């Protein structure tokens, strides 16, 4: 009865079950039949395969078939009559065939025509990755992309509302091999103060004329200029910019890493083909299967990408929320694409708006930017009897007018628009005179302190107060006994602070006061700065009460910790060569944050040891990450924006021992360890006001050339926020020592599956045991060893 009913469902899914059949069984059969709709093979495929089989059979029978079996005749196709051709005729025929193949290949390349063939999802993804830097067959491109991000779907704990969104429009003009113009316009509708104003990157323009790359940041009013060299992979056509797949800006050299990750971490599957921006597209579902990221959890959702069938350019990308798979977290879509378009050469030049700060990295300014007035300034300095300071920075569209010495002795530097004549109003005015006690009285109560770079490795405190409709923005700085007053309607806080931090002294006039003497911490810092190949930065602002410990070099990483009055480490600054650390993993891009100093940083989600997350960035070839157990994202951003490559560290604190654990729950400890280890126990924030404990087990047999990290056992009350496991599609359940344990395994290329972490709840305590990664993507301990540890926890 069941069989008859089930078979009848194949013909009609709406068939009613017979009276005698268990309704639940009938419903299940119906559900299975509906849930697993199996399409019939396409008739074209059936016919093609039949033809292929016929051909194969014929070939087999003609060649290697047993004699007693008659060959499978080939219908309607006469067998060719072979005979030996004269050599000249054969050569001519071969040459003609070769020419034909070359012609077809050339035409295919010129017109970007991809031969029609069945391609697998893996092939499409591989091609799409390649096309991210150089769409197939395209020598020039004009593309408009619309990208929308709903932050509530990716960052549920940041206070975003469901209607918050960030929308970006990207217009790219690319002319191979090395010219481009990318215009980004970002608008945000956000209702939370802790949220970044630009999540997908700031509004701005990126232009390459083939020799220089100009990056204009509209919110920060800066234009960074650098020599064009290696910004893209060799032969790549596509410029740097937010990746349509990852949504973050990604260095070209990471393309290979991303490709490897996509191949290792995702299970690509083809969906029904579609059309995007008038282009036929493959549709690929990318479901993360492995490499589930805890630090960039928002990236763990399912992705669907639409890939141009001819060029393999990603035309559309949708990333679903990992927290609510029905909702979209991020969507990027090409609305217009034109391959091999004629792009006007004028698009590959750029003139920044008036007053824009120009940060030209092609040839760092050696001295003050005095224009034609070097000799005049030296003469004025001699007459005035005090040092004159002139900014090294250039300001777009502004020129320095002839400096003036007025009475009482005061130097006046005026910057005004170029080519507008003497009548043009001043855009920036700097006055300089010997400082007196009266300077303090000119600073209004609402002025705010600003740290700016001073001579050598020092930093100086300046005061800034904004102007009104009638008065200009002001910044006052006393340097080497000289009071410098900056005023401008054009430049704001950041602009004036940067200008004040770029001052150079006119030679020939001795300094009136000596530079501060660096302390012991600065000596150690200076020694490290001389030793490592990247610039070491230190914050010129840290929250009250934090004092630096002596910087330490661990391997290739510099660590500077700041200790709180209670002995805990309140702030950690990790630094290394660019590409050393989180910046080497495209998935660790996190949330993009534009710092007040113009640097683009990345904020990763919170972890027990860093309440506000980890804020990292790359600058001048260096990687820097800041984090702290009590630091909120605004704290981190303020610290990060205050970083100086030249500031001293100041007096260092004597390290105090970490306080003994004082958790509010019974701390559980393993009775078995896979090898001899030392243990340190640290109190960590665990969310919801709860304190957790992290037990770090370090192998006694240390190999400094490899990872010396051992096991990490994190414990928190089961009710604490951080004790909730991040959903992981690769998680499995095991029973170990009578406990229900969630085990996360990963498979890395060339290695058998390995256990990454174990999570379980025991006596009201949520426990996470993490294995240690070693170089080469190997894990230090086997699954069996970790099971032993889990079973021994009491």
């Amino acid at each position, binding site marked *: 009865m069941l069989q008859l009913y089930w*078979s009848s469902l194949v013909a009609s899914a709406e068939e009613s079950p017979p009276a005698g059949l268990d309704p639940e069984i009938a419903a299940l059969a119906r559900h299975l039949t509906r849930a697993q709709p199996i*399409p019939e093979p396409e008739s074209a495929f059936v016919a093609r395969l039949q033809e292929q089989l016929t051909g194969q059979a014929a070939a087999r029978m003609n060649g290697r078939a047993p004699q007693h079996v008659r060959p499978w005749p080939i219908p309607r196709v006469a067998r060719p009559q072979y005979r030996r051709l004269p050599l000249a005729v054969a050569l001519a025929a071969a040459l003609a065939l070769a020419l034909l193949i070359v012609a077809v290949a050339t035409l295919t390349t010129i017109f970007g025509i991809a031969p029609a063939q069945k391609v697998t999802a893996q092939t499409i993804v591989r091609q799409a990755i390649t096309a991210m830097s150089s769409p197939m067959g395209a020598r020039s491109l004009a593309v408009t992309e619309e990208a929308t991000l709903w932050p509530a779907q990716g960052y549920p704990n940041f206070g975003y509302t469901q209607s918050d969104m960030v929308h970006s429009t990207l217009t790219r003009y690319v002319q191979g091999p090395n010219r481009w113009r990318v215009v980004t316009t970002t608008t945000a509708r956000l209702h939370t103060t802790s949220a970044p104003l630009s999540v997908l990157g700031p509004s701005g323009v990126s232009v390459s004329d083939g020799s220089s790359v100009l990056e204009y940041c509209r919110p920060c009013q800066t234009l960074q200029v650098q020599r064009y060299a290696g910004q893209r992979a060799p032969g790549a056509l596509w410029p740097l910019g937010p990746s349509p797949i990852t949504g973050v800006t990604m260095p070209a050299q990471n393309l290979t890493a991303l490709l490897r990750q996509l191949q290792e971490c995702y299970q690509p599957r083809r969906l029904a083909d579609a059309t995007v921006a008038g282009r036929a597209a493959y549709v690929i579902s990318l479901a993360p299967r492995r490499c589930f990221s805890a630090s960039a959890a928002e990236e763990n959702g399912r992705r669907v990408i639409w890939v141009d069938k001819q060029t393999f350019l990603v035309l559309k990308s949708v990333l679903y929320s990992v927290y609510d798979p029905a909702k979209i977290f991020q969507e990027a879509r090409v609305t217009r694409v034109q391959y091999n378009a004629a792009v006007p050469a004028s698009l590959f030049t750029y003139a920044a708006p008036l007053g824009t700060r120009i940060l030209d990295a092609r040839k760092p300014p050696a001295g003050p930017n005095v224009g034609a007035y070097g000799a005049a300034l030296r003469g004025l300095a001699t007459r005035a009897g005090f040092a004159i300071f002139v900014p090294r920075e250039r300001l777009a569209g502004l020129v320095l007018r002839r400096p003036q010495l007025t009475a009482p002795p005061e130097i006046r530097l005026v910057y005004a628009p170029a080519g507008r004549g003497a009548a043009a109003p001043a855009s920036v005015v700097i006055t300089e005179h010997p400082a007196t006690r009266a300077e303090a009285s000119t600073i209004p109560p609402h002025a705010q302190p600003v740290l700016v770079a001073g001579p050598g490795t020092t930093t100086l405190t300046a005061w800034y107060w904004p102007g009104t409709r009638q008065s200009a923005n002001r910044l006052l700085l006393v340097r080497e006994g000289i009071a410098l007053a900056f005023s401008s309607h054009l430049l704001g806080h950041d602009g004036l602070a940067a200008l004040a931090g770029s001052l150079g002294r006119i030679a020939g006039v001795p300094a009136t006061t000596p530079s501060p003497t660096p302390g012991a911490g600065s000596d150690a810092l200076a020694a490290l700065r001389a030793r490592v190949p990247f610039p070491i930065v230190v914050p010129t602002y840290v929250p009250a009460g934090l004092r630096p410990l002596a910087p330490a070099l661990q391997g290739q990483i510099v660590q500077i910790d700041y200790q709180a009055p209670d002995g805990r480490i309140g702030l950690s600054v990790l630094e290394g060569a660019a590409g050393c650390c989180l910046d080497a993993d495209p998935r660790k891009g996190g949330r993009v944050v534009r710092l007040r100093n113009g640097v683009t940083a990345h904020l990763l989600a919170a972890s027990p040891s860093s309440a506000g997350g980890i804020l990292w960035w790359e600058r001048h070839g260096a990687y820097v990450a800041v984090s702290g157990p009590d630091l909120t994202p605004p704290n981190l951003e303020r610290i990060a924006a205050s970083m100086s490559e030249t500031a001293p560290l100041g007096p260092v604190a004597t390290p105090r021992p970490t306080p003994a654990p004082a958790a509010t729950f019974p701390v559980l400890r393993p009775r078995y360890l896979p090898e001899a280890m030392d243990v340190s126990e640290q109190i960590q924030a665990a969310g919801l006001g709860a304190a957790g404990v992290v037990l770090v087990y370090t192998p006694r047999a240390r190999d400094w050339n490899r990872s010396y990290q051992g096991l990490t056992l994190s414990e928190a009350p089961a009710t604490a926020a951080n004790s909730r496991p991040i959903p992981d599609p690769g998680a499995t359940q095991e029973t170990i020592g009578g406990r229900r344990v969630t085990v996360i395994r990963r498979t890395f290329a060339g290695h058998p599956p390995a256990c990454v972490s174990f999570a379980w709840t025991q006596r009201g305590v949520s426990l996470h045991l993490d294995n240690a990664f070693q170089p080469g993507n190997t894990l230090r301990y086997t699954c069996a060893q970790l099971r032993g540890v889990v079973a021994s926890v009491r």
Partner: protein
Amino acid sequence: MGEKAASVAEAESSPSADDEKLVMAARRDPQAFTPLYQRYVGPIYRYCYLRLGDRAAAEDATSEIFTKALAALPGYRAGGSFAAWLFRIAHNVVHDVYRRAHSTATLDAAGDRPDGEPSPLDALITQDHMAATRAALKALPAAQRRAVELQLAGWSVADSAAALGVSTGALKLLRFRALRRLRTLLAQERDGIPSEVRYDVE
């Protein structure tokens, strides 16, 4: 249902005798393989699609199965079941595809069927259904699971029984037990008791 059920039942009469004649003919004259191919290409394709989850992979596997079958036809032993013989080839080819792709689950991709793009909500519902169904199917004993899969792939009772090497009565019992077990597993899933995930690929 009467007429349709009757036709279904009729279609489930044993095809072995017919198959045997066709196989013998194909061994003598390969052109005679065409009827066998036409008869089984649908069921084999549907089985491959069910196991592999997308058209391209199913087409590749179907091609490989029939190519192998054609090549191995001279070694086919008379008196057996052609359906069972072909199913063993299909099973091995699908297994090889898994091994090559390092896949760890069966029926995994069926949720991404190429029937047009679903709305996110529909997709979620479908995914939830599929995930639960997949997990439950994976938890079935291998014989029950194959019996269900062949049913879903549209194989007749006789062909399925022959493919699995059991009598038609035993096959029906397998399917009934499979449904009963699935009902229990899906009910547990609804109640929040996850079924163990097994990584066997047979």
